[in-house]
């Protein structure tokens, strides 16, 4: 038994500790069982799923950049029906809450995916990706327009009784305005942040490296931006936040909690150390003990005004 309480509640998503996985960086979780005890995670957040199967973007799909990486996966996934039939039951065996990340080509799509997942008792919450910068039709446009974010939240809420967590795009001038719109739309929580839009060029071929030309920047390079956005939104909007962006050690995760995140996600960090999530859980617990706290909720937002 641990001496401190690590349990948090993200808008109805009950987590035994504040650590989950960033969508798209952890597969379904099943690929990682050699490195991670899935049953220890606060929640497993799975790869983005869409109504129809998506083949994804052309190669190359990733490029290394200073302290970060660009990806243009293009939401490759087998579609929500296949996910529900084949993957979900296997992940559910591990007993941790499952957060399903959803995306669509238009707002209607989001509603349909939410309706399908509503029937699945193994799904604990929906994380709504309005920010995937890769898919030309939807992602980018939705996430950068507060009205569309509000409308997406409303549509998803209308189709589910599960907690709805809106995952916002950082590619906006005023993140607080978008966060407020999500709340108005009925969101139960927010995930901050998705990838920053970027690109890289190969000076030998004189062409963009990514097959999709542009892609999403992730990793330690984006941590200061992510932290700033979590802090700003925590100060201005009364919604629990799952904070992420560049977490590469437990200390990074503690920074997010102090900035106002109720929970944290490990993303690109999984690629460097596949068992990082476990170390982050242990590290947060150790930090609380060392600093005389007996509940993780006591440190959430301490850096905020």
């Amino acid at each position, binding site marked *: 038994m641990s001496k401190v309480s690590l349990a948090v509640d993200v808008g109805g998503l009950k987590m035994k500790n504040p650590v989950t996985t960033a969508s*798209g*960086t*952890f*597969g379904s979780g099943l*690929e*990682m069982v*050699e*490195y991670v005890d899935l049953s220890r995670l606060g929640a497993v957040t799975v*790869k983005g799923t869409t109504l129809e199967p998506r*083949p*994804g973007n*052309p*190669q*190359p*799909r*990733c*490029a*290394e*950049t*200073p*302290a*970060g*990486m660009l*990806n243009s*996966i293009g939401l*490759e996934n087998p579609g929500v029906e296949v996910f529900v039939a084949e993957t979900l039951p296997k992940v559910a065996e591990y007993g941790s809450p499952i957060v399903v990340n959803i995306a669509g080509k238009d707002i209607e799509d989001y509603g349909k995916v939410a309706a399908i997942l509503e029937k699945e008792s193994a799904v604990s919450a929906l994380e709504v990706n309005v920010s995937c910068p890769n898919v030309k039709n939807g992602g980018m446009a939705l996430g950068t327009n507060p009205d569309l974010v509000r409308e997406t939240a409303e549509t998803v809420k209308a189709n589910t009784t599960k907690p709805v967590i809106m995952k916002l795009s950082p590619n906006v001038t005023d993140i607080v305005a978008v966060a407020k719109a999500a709340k108005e739309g009925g969101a139960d929580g927010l995930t901050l942040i998705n990838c920053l839009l970027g690109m890289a060029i190969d000076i030998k071929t004189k062409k963009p490296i990514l097959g999709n030309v542009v892609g999403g920047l992730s*990793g*330690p*390079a984006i941590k200061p931006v992510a932290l700033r956005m979590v802090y700003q939104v925590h100060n201005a909007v009364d919604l629990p936040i799952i904070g992420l962006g560049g977490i*590469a050690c437990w200390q990074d995760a503690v920074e997010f909690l102090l900035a106002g995140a109720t929970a944290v996600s490990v993303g*690109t960090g*999984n*690629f*460097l*150390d*596949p*068992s990082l999530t476990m170390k982050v859980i242990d590290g947060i617990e150790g930090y609380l003990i060392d600093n005389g706290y007996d509940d993780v909720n006591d440190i959430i937002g301490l850096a905020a005004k």
Partner: protein
Amino acid sequence: MIEQGKILLNEKVGRDIWRMELKCPWIAMKAKPGQFVNVKLNDVAEPLLRRPISLHGIDAENGIISLLYLVVGRGTEMMTKLENGDSVDLLGPLGKGFSTFFHGRRAVIVAGGIGSAPFYPLMEELKAKQKNITMIYGARDAESLTCLDLYEEQGAEMILVTEDGSVGEKGFVTGPLDCLLAERGADFVYACGPEAMLKAVEEVAANHGVQGEVSTEARMGCGLGVCLSCSKKGKDGKNRKVCQDGPVFPMGVMAYE
């Protein structure tokens, strides 16, 4: 599995080509020919990602693996600076390796440049199964052909090819492969090298009705099957993860888009 490999040897063996031996008993015990390790060169964010490198030697008995690497950029450049006794963070063994269950005894190995790397452990396995091995090994020039003595030790018949003709036949590997399959035939062909070469080798093998396997490459985020950076299209329109479904695929599967 993550294992700290301790460097026993790191030496230059050809034009920008280095060979590294590491003590890492667990990976050495588990690894199969054609699998790879994902190498982290430091514990900070720069450079961020692990580098996928094939296993060039698997010595389970002594707990030693070796890597053969071509210096092309920052990561491989950093590898050359490592010294005996230094530790390297290795994730592996990863991916699906070569199979050696074909009927008949005649195996042909086609290697292009640093694509020779995964073939030494394969040869050991083929030799143990009493297969006859011919290796068609092509590179830019004589200095880019490395570890020939190792392959010869395994009893492989060597056919060398260089683009500049400095040693062996002048040209590309597909010429000698075509002749060999026409004259003597083969039971199975293995290939590793640039994608254009793999595509051409598959065509030649298919023309002669010979099956085989190719070891492919892709830029990787994770090496673990979770990020889909390495996902490439097959001829059937379905995607395959090079890191998990590969890097070795049967000939005829990948689309080479």
